[in-house]
């Protein structure tokens, strides 16, 4: 008889945490402005909503954009790594159920930094003894650094899909951060009639773009538009400058 009993000493332990238990971290994002050589210290908080003790290791990684997507890179792997400068007030953190832990992290902007962002991770290290498959969680806190006024964003042509009886007007375009600094693009769509009057407005969702990052932005306008020709203007406020694009369209 072929009986291949794997000696997989799997525990019957199935003590599951309470349903809906969560792990939370704050702040989620830290926006910092400064110059190379400057340091900043930030307190990070993690809350354990599970019903078992959770352990974490504090880990920093650089964030760069590769092929339009964000990539996490281990600290020190890139020249000018910001993550490599991260100093945590404690490297290992244990949080009891329902409890909160705080860790300070100090980062220093090196000369010629490799990027403009890093992540400080509460990296889950909880080991479950005696065999079962376990699921645990880690949370990362994004640090974004603005080191100069070189804010720039390119946009693709604005595409307008006029409203129909069954669909709203839709505006879409791609935005690329073409500068050296991160930007938060706060966009607004304005619809202007032939007489130059603004007949509709719609805010676009804010987007953070790291240098080199691309995002497709789309918004709908649900207001009524009478038949006729219109011009759509989308203006992105980047803080120190703005970027505007326009497109004309016809409502039938």
């Amino acid at each position, binding site marked *: 008889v072929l009986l291949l009993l794997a000696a997989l000493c*799997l525990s019957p332990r199935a003590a599951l945490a309470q349903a809906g238990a969560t792990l939370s971290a704050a702040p989620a994002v830290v926006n910092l402005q400064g110059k190379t050589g400057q340091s900043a210290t930030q307190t990070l908080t993690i809350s354990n909503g599970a019903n078992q003790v959770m352990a974490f290791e504090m880990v920093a990684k650089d964030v760069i954009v590769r092929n339009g997507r964000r990539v*996490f890179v281990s600290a020190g792997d890139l020249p000018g790594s910001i993550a490599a400068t991260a100093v945590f007030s404690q490297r290992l953190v244990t949080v009891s159920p329902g409890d909160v832990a705080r860790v300070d992290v100090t980062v220093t902007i090196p000369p010629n930094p490799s990027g403009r962002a890093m992540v400080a991770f509460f990296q889950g290290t909880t080991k479950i003894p005696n065999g079962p498959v376990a699921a645990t*969680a880690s949370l990362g806190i994004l640090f974004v650094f603005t080191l100069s006024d070189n804010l720039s964003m390119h946009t693709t042509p604005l595409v307008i899909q006029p409203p129909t009886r069954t669909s709203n007007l839709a505006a879409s375009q791609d935005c690329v951060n073409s500068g050296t600094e991160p930007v938060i693009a706060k966009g607004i769509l304005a619809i202007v009639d032939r007489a130059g009057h603004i007949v509709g407005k719609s805010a676009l969702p804010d987007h953070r773009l790291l240098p080199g990052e691309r995002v497709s932005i789309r918004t709908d306008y649900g207001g009524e538009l009478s038949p006729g020709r219109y011009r759509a203007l989308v203006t992105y406020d980047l803080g120190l400058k703005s970027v505007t694009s326009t497109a004309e369209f016809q409502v039938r």
Partner: protein
Amino acid sequence: MKRNLLVFFSLLALAFASTAFAAGETATGTLTISGTLAGSITLSIGGGNAGATTGGTIALGTVSKYGTYSPPAGFSRSNNGVGTSPWRIGGGTWTVTVDQANVDTPANGYALTSSIGSGSGTGITWTEGVTSSDTPVSSSVDLSNGSAHDIFTSGANKGSYGTASTHTLNIDITDSAAPASVNPLTRTITFTATAN
């Protein structure tokens, strides 16, 4: 007349006294409230058919290709006939939900990685299937090398806050996989979320 004047001034004095008393009752003070609003994110594991939760465990029990096996909720053993290899323990599902409050750019969504922490061992493959209304980097992720693998990243592959993604675990085991000096089915699957 004198008496009337006395009454008048007495009433006037009383009026002032009650005004002063009332003023004492409503004396004002200040209390300065200070605080900083911080954006926050939260991750929860739950739902699905496997009963998994954040920090929870799934006991697969003693697993073998042949013979009786009672899998835990959501899991089943398959492809375990004579001559077939690899065979599988899988089908368990759970959901991962990442939510936020007060993040400055929620439209950027979040990034999510998944890892089993260390290599799965020769002849054993851990695969995680991902279904979501968002667009994951891949609908099937081979976790076997123990590295962190992207589930959601940014841009078109971002995860949307508050939208649960469903994750299915399959473990494929060849007949030649060594049984376990290192307990190859003992792994902690770690989901890591970061605000974009």
